[in-house]
């Protein structure tokens, strides 16, 4: 069952008369009880997407089109930039929540954890009593194996790993339907990453959140954590597939190149050679006519430079590449 779907999401930053196209007709589905991984190199628009999905885009981001449907509610994403963000504000934290990048600094350093928990709950229910907030927050901490006394602490009194988990507990305090995790792991060491992965799995397993969008540049991590993986390049989703299939048999040339440049713990990894991706990402100041990856793609054809490749769905996966489109056509004809 589909929990959330993003349709036709386009957005750009405007700075000094120049536009930077950050998101270009992005479409994604998050299924109930699953973790969708979104991967891409820096500048591919994944963090922009996190800010849009968590309904809190930065002031200079213009969302020109796009809807987010979460559990039956349709949210017009373009509203936020036109000053009608009040309706979005009501959904933040309760329907969609953000697990931020750099969780270590995500807590207000001069406020006790418990008071911050109360602020968060009070944002959803203004009349909630402080005692009730503390009770609920304590219960949530306990459910995640955290000592409830953490509520009385100031953030600096918690260890790094503890802070990470407290932030996760706070992010899910109001039982959001969808959790958007924006590179929460990038600043963590390997063992803390492991703990975070377990924690997120547990959130899903215990039904504290219904679905997670996990944004990262770390394909190896996603191959363990995610149920499905979407690959982004230059503001577009170029391929989406079940995690295992994407890792073992990527179809889009960019996915192939991305996977060839990292080590993913899979059978056959040993003895593989790592290769980089030649060239650099495209200039996003002008709209791109054809496939964004074409200039760096070893398989590029004439059509790739002029026409945008269609999204080709095969079974449980899809990708947007002219080669796949031709193979598909040939299969139908033949």
């Amino acid at each position, binding site marked *: 069952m589909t929990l959330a779907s993003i349709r036709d999401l386009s957005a750009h930053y405007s700075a000094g008369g120049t536009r930077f196209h950050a998101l270009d007709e992005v479409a994604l589905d998050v299924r109930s009880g699953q973790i969708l991984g979104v991967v891409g190199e820096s500048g591919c628009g994944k963090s922009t997407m996190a800010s849009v999905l968590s309904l809190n885009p930065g002031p200079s981001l213009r969302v020109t089109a796009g809807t987010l449907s979460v559990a039956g509610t349709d949210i017009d994403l373009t509203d936020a930039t036109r000053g009608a963000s009040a309706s979005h504000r009501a959904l*933040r934290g*309760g329907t969609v929540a*953000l697990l931020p990048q750099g969780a270590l*600094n*995500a807590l*207000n350093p*001069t406020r006790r954890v418990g008071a911050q928990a109360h602020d968060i709950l009070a*944002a959803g229910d203004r009349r909630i009593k402080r005692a009730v907030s503390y009770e609920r927050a304590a219960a949530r901490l306990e459910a995640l194996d955290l000592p409830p006394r953490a509520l009385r602490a100031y953030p600096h009194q918690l260890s790094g790993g503890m802070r990470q988990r407290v*932030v996760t507990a706070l*992010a899910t305090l109001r039982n959001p339907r969808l959790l958007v995790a924006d590179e929460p792991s990038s600043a963590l060491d390997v063992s803390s990453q492991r703990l975070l992965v377990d924690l997120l799995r547990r959130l899903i397993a215990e039904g504290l959140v219904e679905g997670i969008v996990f944004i990262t540049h770390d394909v190896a991590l996603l191959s363990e954590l995610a149920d499905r993986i979407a690959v982004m390049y230059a503001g577009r989703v170029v391929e989406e597939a079940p995690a295992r299939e994407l890792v073992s048999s990527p179809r889009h040339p960019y996915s192939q190149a991305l996977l060839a440049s990292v080590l993913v713990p899979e059978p056959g990894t040993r003895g593989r050679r790592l290769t980089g991706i030649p060239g650099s990402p495209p200039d996003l100041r002008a709209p791109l006519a054809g496939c964004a990856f074409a200039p760096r793609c070893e398989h590029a054809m004439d059509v790739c430079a002029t026409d945008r490749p269609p999204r080709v769905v095969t079974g449980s996966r899809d990708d947007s590449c002219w080669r796949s489109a031709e193979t598909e056509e040939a299969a139908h004809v033949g």
Partner: protein
Amino acid sequence: MGFLRHLLSKLGWYAAAFAAALGLNFFLPRLLPGNPVDTLVAQALRGGASSETKQRVYETYIQEFGLDQNLGAQFLTYVGNVLQGDFGTSFSRHPAEVSAMIADALPWTIALQLPAVLLGWIIGNLVGAVAAYRRGGLDRGIYLSSLFLTAAPYYCLAILLLYGFAVVLPLFPTGGGWSFGLSPEWSAPFAADALSHWFLPFLSLLLVFIGGQAIGMRSMAVYEVDADYVRFAESFGLPDRKIVGYIFRNGMLPQITGLALAIGTLVGGALLTEIVYSYPGIGTLLYDAILNKDYPVIQAVTLLVLIVVLVANFLVDVLYGLIDPRIRAAERGDR
């Protein structure tokens, strides 16, 4: 305990600063060429005093300052007198005690400055936090007007307000602490009269102070508004006033140190404002003393200001240690 040690080391620094201040206050005028003490005696006695008065002034002066002794002994006499609250006798209003003159003036100054500082600090910091958080036109407007308020010296704004609201539009009295014909007493008519005299100088201090604090807070909060914890709080749809509160609390901590450092300028500026309004406080006392070369009064006032500034600094330090949990824990060693 760390906090106590922190306090003690601070206390040590203030003791050193106080000793330096006391020394400056005493030695500076005496060590400069031309033996200014003699000059001052001469100047004090110039004019139409009778020879009997002259003789009395001179004798009191010699005795009070122990002028027949060497400089070290004079300093000890001075410190001893000061510790007993004895600041000597005024030259210009002989035989008035300097301590009594100060006691008369001090309440007026406190009534003027304390509310202006506290209120201005709170309002200014809130304005600065809001400006930084909202950004855009509001921010620019607040920034430029605050910059203007701080750039203009205290007394310039005081002059403009006095001219505008007491002379051109006679809404308020043109100066002094109370109207001619009344005398200070605890009664409703006098209180109302004093309040109307108090308002303009208070307002001019308040505005300048709001401006300065808003600027400081804004430049702090500019960094805070992009902080991770603000973005995280926003992602829960926390109301704006709550988020401004977060920023305020975090931006405020450096602002408290700023307050400590600004107290000196502040008190000095406020004294000048009193002069513009002929307000019967310490500032006007100092002004008259300088015009009349009333050296004991000048020295007492400068010492008083020095002490007030040091004590205020120390209190702010203590307050800072209590408010900031990070400081309490980390016990930073900077002085």
